[in-house]
């Protein structure tokens, strides 16, 4: 039997469950231990420990009206709710609530694609629509529009955008929150609002113009707990005539400075239209004691030390990868201009990885190796046992510091994080700067999680040290696993936590009973707020 959330009596909890069942029907209320366990975070860094975040029950509505009914019951019974869209925000908490005892509101059944306009290049979707769902819809109906898919692609367009995820294609599409246009939200009071132009019921521009009239409130529904988003519009990318996937490689460690400066300039001018990835084939090489020593040096290894090592490896020090979209003649001119701008770096090499003309046949689409760059969802990122006899991976956390797009920063970050890993006896992972957003790089590290407390304790200590060490250097992260959201918010503590206090002031105003997404991004209702230092 499920345990009621703290502060809710067993009798009230049972009454609430009966009431929830009357809203959604018997099949869609989950209260047995076996069913509720399906909502565990499969990659939890607290797996099996007392602190692991677990739900008390789950309810799966199929309409806005049912959500409003659930919210009404929650307000009456003081029941904490945790809405999920597809529940695939793995590495950030998955389908498990940040506050144990919450009732998960599973929106996967609300998976309707409400509108796709090929003419306007927009769509309007419900929470349960995954990238795979939308891709199949566009392909089946021969609609010449692309989604910008997160990688892996099993997540929700809406859920990923609301957690501010990113993708790989053209400029204003790959920042997924930025690519949204208009929302419908059930507020914690049960009231239904539409944002932007959607507040005018006759407006034909809900998915075309973001702002409407008055303060633009959409931002408060991202990484937050201020409502249950039920519809969301997105801008889609018109399928280009062609694409050319390329690489640029440079031989020496310090070459990353002019490389990144030039790439940033080309991105700003839209000469390069896509996510641009700068990684080091040298630093990401196979485990080698000489490499580990350099990676662990904390910055004491000089450029000359690194370049001597690189000379033994017969690989470039840095490789940038990106893709052009558009008419072939335009792509050729953009690529030519890119090469001209980078020609001053001694030893620079240019490579063409793949070229495409669209539309692709099913066979051609299936054969694309790097699918997300063409808006094709994939699970190819998951390779849990990549060698014969290897122990499979069980899960991981994403550590994702953001840096300014400068080569010096990428080098400094690899030195700082390399030392953190070395001090904890772990081989430092690769470093890459990925320009999902136009003016920053995200430097993802995957920190493994396990199904045992001993290894997870080390993982948590490593993760926290990485977060703090990088924030100290001016590299806070952009998104964080539910178990670490209080730590994440601490890194944004200007003026003694004024931003966090503002979040909680808003919480009190829009959710007076404190029922929606309790604890998400460390936003707590009054009754659960811990004393501040």
């Amino acid at each position, binding site marked *: 039997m499920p345990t009621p959330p703290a502060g809710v009596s067993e009798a009230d909890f049972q009454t609430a469950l009966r009431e929830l069942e009357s809203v959604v029907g018997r099949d*869609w209320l989950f209260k047995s231990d076996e*069913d509720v366990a*399906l*909502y*565990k975070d*499969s*990659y939890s860094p607290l797996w099996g420990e007392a602190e692991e975040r677990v739900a008390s029950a*789950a309810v799966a509505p199929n309409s806005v009206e049912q959500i409003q009914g659930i919210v009404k019951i929650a307000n009456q019974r003081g029941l904490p709710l945790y809405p999920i869209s*597809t*529940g*695939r925000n*793995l590495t950030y908490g998955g389908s498990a609530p940040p506050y144990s005892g919450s009732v998960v509101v*599973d929106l996967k*059944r609300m*998976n309707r*694609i409400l509108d796709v306009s090929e003419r306007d290049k927009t769509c309007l979707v419900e929470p*349960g*629509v995954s990238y795979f*769902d939308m891709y*199949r819809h566009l*392909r*089946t109906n021969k609609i010449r529009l692309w989604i910008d898919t997160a*990688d892996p*692609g099993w997540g929700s367009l809406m859920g990923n955008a609301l957690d501010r995820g990113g993708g790989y294609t053209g400029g204003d599409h790959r920042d997924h929150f930025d690519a949204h246009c208009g929302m419908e939200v059930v507020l914690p009071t049960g009231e239904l609002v539409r944002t932007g132009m959607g507040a005018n019921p006759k407006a034909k521009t809900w998915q075309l113009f973001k702002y409407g009239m008055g303060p633009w409130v959409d931002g408060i529904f991202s990484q937050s707990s201020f409502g249950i988003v039920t519809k969301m519009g997105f801008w889609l990318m018109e399928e280009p005539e062609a694409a050319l996937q390329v690489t640029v490689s440079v031989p020496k460690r310090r070459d990353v400075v002019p490389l990144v400066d030039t790439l940033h300039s080309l991105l700003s001018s839209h000469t390069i239209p896509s996510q641009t*990835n700068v*990684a080091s*084939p040298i630093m*990401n090489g196979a485990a080698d004691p000489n490499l580990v020593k350099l990676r662990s040096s904390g910055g004491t290894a000089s450029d000359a030390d690194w370049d001597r090592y690189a000379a033994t490896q017969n690989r470039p020090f840095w490789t940038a*990868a990106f893709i052009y979209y558009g008419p072939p003649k335009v792509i050729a001119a953009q690529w030519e201009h890119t090469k001209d701008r980078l020609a001053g770096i001694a030893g620079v090499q240019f490579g063409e990885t793949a070229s495409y003309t669209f539309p692709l046949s099913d*066979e051609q689409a*299936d*054969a694309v*190796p*790097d699918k997300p760059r063409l808006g094709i969802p*994939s699970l*190819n*990122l*998951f*390779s*849990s*046992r*990549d060698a*014969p*006899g*290897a*122990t*499979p*991976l*069980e899960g*991981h956390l994403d550590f994702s510091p953001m840096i300014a797009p400068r080569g010096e920063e990428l080098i400094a970050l690899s030195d700082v994080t390399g030392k953190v890993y070395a001090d904890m*006896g772990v*081989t430092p*992972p*690769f470093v*890459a700067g990925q320009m999902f957003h136009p003016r920053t790089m995200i430097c993802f590290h*995957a*920190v*493994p999680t396990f199904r045992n407390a*001993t*290894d997870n304790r080390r993982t948590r200590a490593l993760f926290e040290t990485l977060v703090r060490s990088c924030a100290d250097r001016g590299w806070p992260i952009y998104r964080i696993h539910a178990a670490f959201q209080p730590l994440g918010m601490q890194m944004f503590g200007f003026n003694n936590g004024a931003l966090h206090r503002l979040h909680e002031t808003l919480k009190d105003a829009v959710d007076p009973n404190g029922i929606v997404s309790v604890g998400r991004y460390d936003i707590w209702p009054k009754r659960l707020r811990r004393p501040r230092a």
Partner: protein
Amino acid sequence: MRRRSMNDQTRRIAALLALAAGVAPLTAARAQDAPFPIAAWSRTTASIEDRGQPAERGAAVFNNWCNACHSRNPMNAPGTTSLQNKYQGGVPAALEDRKDLTIEFVKFYVRDGVAMMPRFRKTEVSDADLDAVAAYLTRR
């Protein structure tokens, strides 16, 4: 042992992210193995619960939920690659080619997950869909 285990995990995550990040050389397109997944994806987000005979329904559930990892085409199937590396030819790597699966085995892994494969909820794969896909994968 634990330290080595964590390093091992870290290296392999690094390798897979490096591949995703376009660092490693991209493998050339491999020969296609039928059936072809995208063609089989031709459904909207409407429920598949009421579709067709059990075998047809099981195939539809497999294509919708399993194929992106467990396709016969190893290029689109990290699950197939993982099972190839686990069994090294002792059993076929593609689930649809296995002759040794049982209904209980299929249901356990869908609801419990394994390694990087997460649990699948009943709002994703309903009990009826799970019956159908288990029947499909255990057909002889």
